[in-house]
Structure formats: structure tokens, C-alpha cells
């Protein structure tokens, strides 16, 4: 870690104070894909996608099942590296640096870009150790008070009150919605700059879902959030920008969320949003 980063708090909470006016800043692109193709073997899952994702905004990705939303998300933090058949063409820039350059270390990249998965996947460890895991593997456990960092992350994930008395019990003993919030706490504990979320609420009931939506709104005060969702209302509620993918991995439209939902350019987007399609 660089010294200049050390001066900042590892977990920036008290979001409201720190990031006042973040949304009023002019868009600054943090992630940019140009002519990105992703293949699984011979099959193309992402087709020539170009997109600029703004900093500290919530960008939603919607589209029918199998259109490549998860694939796109995984190509941002190079989780596709874990899939043997996956192959990539084109460029993807994070803070101006192509993440597929020879000299980029995916391990380092993933320490800057956190991820929350569709299915909650807590480790079979205590709640405390789940949240501390990222700090530990990233070697940040020496720099911070681990217990405080865990508490901050759990508070930020709106889980603290429910688990503060049983931090030593297994993460697997939580309910599905709590598990997912635990995974969010785990992802934000090491203080990444971007948070990727792949249908984080798809396994949850409405109450848990709304908790997570509130949480995303808070997180966006200081993190860049990219979220995949099947839930149109959810995308409309929580996102600033929306990208619509259609079958074949094509990005058909990307614009302000209000524009996409009220006045889309592309007929297919309108059809999809109004349910005539996909």
C-alpha cells in the first residue's frame, strides 16, 4: 500500500459527512470498456461492448437471462480468469489503466474492486472472521484495529445490530438476507474503490431486499457501484445510470436511468422494459 493511502481511513463510513455533494460532481469515468468481446470457447457471450462507467454512481445492468451481464461484471475484476474456457478481446480500463495489460496483477486489481455474488457465499468461519478475511489476506490487519474495522463494515452493511452479540458464531448460521449483507460487509471491509454486485438481492425476500437497496444508496456516496439486476423497479429506484444488454451479449443502450425508463432510444429497450420482450 502506498503511503498516501495510509493517511486515509481504511473504511470511510459516516458516509453522509464525507461525501456530501458527491453526486453533484461532474461524471468522472472510472471504468471504461472499448470494443470488449468475451468468449467461452467458441461461443461469444459479450459482443463488442463499449461503455463508460462513472465514479461514485450506481450503474445498473439489466437484460434477459443469459445475455452476458454476469460475464461482463466478471470481466471487470478479472474473475473470468478463474474460468478456463473464457477468453477476452478488446480493452477494459480501470482508472485509465487497461486491466488486461500484461503487467496488471489480477490479485491487485481485485483488492481495488470488490464483488458481491448472486448467491450469498459466506465462508465457513465466524461472522467476525468473514468480514476480517479481506483485511487479513490484503495484509491490512496490521494497519487497523480489526475489531473496529469489522464493526464499521457491518454497520455500513446494516447488519451490525443483528449480529453484534454473536460475532463468533458461524456466518452460515445467518438467514439468507443476513448472509448476503455479511458478504457485502466482507466486500467493503477492505475499502475497495468499486463494488460489483451480481443480482445481490435475487435470493432475498422484499424486506431484506429493501434493506440492501438502502444500503446501496448509502454505499454510492463513496463507492462506485455496478449492479446487475433482473428487477426493473429496483434498477429504476437505485441507479443513476442503466445499461441494457440483450441476448447475444450486445449492449443496446446506456444512459441516465430516467432516460432509459422514460424515453429510451431503442425500440427493443422499450419492449424489454415494458415486458414485451425477453
Amino acid at each position, binding site marked *: 500500500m502506498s503511503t498516501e493511502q495510509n493517511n486515509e481511513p481504511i473504511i470511510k463510513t459516516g458516509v453522509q459527512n464525507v461525501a456530501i455533494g458527491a453526486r453533484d460532481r461532474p461524471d468522472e469515468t472510472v471504468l471504461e470498456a472499448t470494443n470488449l468481446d468475451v468468449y467461452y470457447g467458441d461461443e461469444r457471450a459479450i459482443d463488442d461492448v463499449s461503455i463508460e462507467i462513472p465514479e461514485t454512481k450506481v450503474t445498473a445492468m439489466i437484460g434477459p437471462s443469459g445475455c452476458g451481464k454476469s460475464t461482463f461484471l466478471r470481466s471487470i475484476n478479472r474473475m473470468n480468469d478463474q474460468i478456463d474456457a473464457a477468453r477476452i478481446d478488446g480493452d477494459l480500463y480501470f482508472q485509465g489503466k487497461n486491466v488486461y*495489460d500484461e*503487467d496488471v*496483477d489480477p490479485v491487485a*486489481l481485485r*483488492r481495488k474492486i470488490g464483488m458481491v455474488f448472486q448467491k450469498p457465499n459466506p465462508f465457513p468461519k465466524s461472522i467476525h472472521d468473514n468480514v476480517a478475511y479481506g483485511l487479513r489476506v490484503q*495484509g491490512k490487519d496490521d494497519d487497523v484495529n480489526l475489531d473496529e474495522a469489522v464493526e464499521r463494515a457491518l454497520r455500513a452493511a446494516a447488519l451490525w445490530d443483528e449480529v453484534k452479540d454473536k460475532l463468533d458464531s458461524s456466518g452460515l448460521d445467518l438467514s439468507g438476507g443476513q448472509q448476503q449483507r455479511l458478504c457485502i460487509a466482507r466486500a467493503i471491509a477492505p475499502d475497495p474503490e468499486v463494488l460489483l454486485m451480481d443480482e445481490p438481492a435475487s435470493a432475498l425476500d422484499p424486506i431484506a431486499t429493501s434493506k440492501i437497496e438502502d444500503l446501496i444508496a448509502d454505499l454510492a456516496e463513496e463507492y462506485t457501484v455496478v449492479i446487475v439486476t433482473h428487477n426493473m423497479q429496483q434498477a429504476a429506484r437505485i441507479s443513476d445510470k442503466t445499461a441494457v444488454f440483450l441476448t447475444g451479449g450486445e449492449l443496446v443502450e446506456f444512459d441516465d436511468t430516467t432516460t432509459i425508463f422514460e424515453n429510451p432510444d431503442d425500440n427493443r429497450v422499450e419492449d424489454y422494459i415494458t415486458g414485451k420482450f425477453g
Partner: protein
Amino acid sequence: MSTDTDDAPFAESEETPFTDIDLGWEHRKNRIFLGIIFAASMFGVVMLALLLLDVVTDFYRGQTEFGISLIDFFTRDGSRRQELAGFRGAIVASVMLMIFTAILAFFVGVGSAIYLEEYAPDNRVTRLIEANLANLAGVPSIVYGLLALAAFVNGIGLGPILLAGAIALALLVMPIIIVSTQEALRAVPDSMRNGSYATGATKWQTIRGVVLPAAMPGIMTGTILALARAIGETAPLIMVGALFTNRIAWGPFDRFSAMPTQIYNWAAEPEPHFIHLAATGIAVLLAFLFAMNGIAIYLRNKYERDL
């Protein structure tokens, strides 16, 4: 993906945005760890190579330096005199042991598996049988030898005959046959059973007509592998009293010494000539083993293609 996480170059990336995090040590740890566990994995392979190499060189030196003639080896029986000793009686005894072990263990083993998989209700008796199976599989082979010695050799007075050895081996491999048969039965899809029931077949008719034929290749594979385990078993035969004859066994009621016990006899002798006889015997035993495993693998592959 073509660029594997841990092969990605990182060392010279000091100026890139993501390497204000210094991961050099992290990756070095990973490499060192990989080096260690790779070396550990190779240990087993190297030992296997050394073992086979040792057997082959001793076999070869037996032919060249000790004048062990393969023709004599296959046509003579055991003998106290090194220049007269051969392996014929041992081979014959081992083959007969296999046959009787197979007869004794196959039907009972397969029958048990059918009961447990197809008929057994989920009650305490069934759970007891299943738990007992797991424990039987962990009983040392020498204990089966003691059982046969006390119950059959001396208890009912069979004497140290080949059949007593076959009983010990049959009891020993029974759990293996049962478990592999259970797996083969479980692999038969329920749709097949239902198709048979829908025509009005009883359970037994369904098992005989549909389930068993479908599972048979898997059952055969498991049985052959179990027999391959039995053919190398030494301790139970020694307990039964197989060490003390050099004569060939002509039938199940004769005294016998099989391949592994003959090898033990030779390997325990101090003279180098006997050590090389043992190596020659091991070469023959391993040839049997590899052939049996080959057949099992062939059956398994053929079976998998059919499914």
C-alpha cells in the same frame, strides 16, 4: 481463461495504478508454497518409480546373475533348495483362490447390496448393517486370517487348506464388493425402475429384469477390483497356515501356498538368490494385478460409453 491468476506477470509493474499495493511477497509466498506441495506430490511418484525400478532390476539380475530360468520358474513348485524353487504351485493356488473367493463373495456380496439398496427399510437394523459394513472395511486383514484360523481351520477342522484361505479372502473383500455394487445400483436411474413397475412387474422382477442387467458392468468392475485386492493379500493366508508347504495344490481341499506367501517366504530368506526369486515372483504378481485392473478399466470405460 488464458492468463491464469498466478502466472500473470507482476514483478515489473511498479508504475501501474494497481501496484501501489506491493504484492511481490504475496506472490512469492504462493510460488514457494506451490514449489513445496509440488515436490510433495512428486514424492509419491518418485517412490512408485523407485519401487518398480527396484523390482525390475532385481528381476533382471535374477535372470542374468543368478541364473533364474523363467521356464523353470513357471514349471517348478516351491522348494527349500534355491536352485530347484519355482512358482508354478503358487500361481495355481492363487488362481484357484481367486475362483473360490469370487464364488463365495460374489453372490452374497451382490445379494447384500441389492437388499440394502432396493429392499431395506430405513430403520435401525438397516443402519446397523450399513455402519457395520464401514467398520468391517477397516478391520486389518490379518484379523480375517485369525477368524478363519479359529473358526474354519481348527474350529470345524478343515485344516490349513486352500478353501479356508478362500473363505478368509472372501470375507475380507465382501465389504468392497457390497459397496461397489451399491454404487452401481444407485447409478441405475429410477425412470428405468418405474418403467418396469408400470408394466406390473414386482420388485424382484424389476431387479432381475432391469436393474441388475443395467448395473452388471459396474458390479463386475467392482468385483474384479476386489479380487485384485485379494490376490495380493498375504497376512490372512499366513494366519491360515499357507506358509508350510511346497507342494502344489490340486483342489480346494489341499494344503497350499499362494503367490504372495511364496514371495514372503523367499523375501525373508537371507541368501540373495532367494531375494531375486522373490523379485521374479513379484513381477508375476504385478503382471496379474495390472491385467486385472486393465480388465476392470476396460469394462468401466465400455460401460460409461453405453450410458
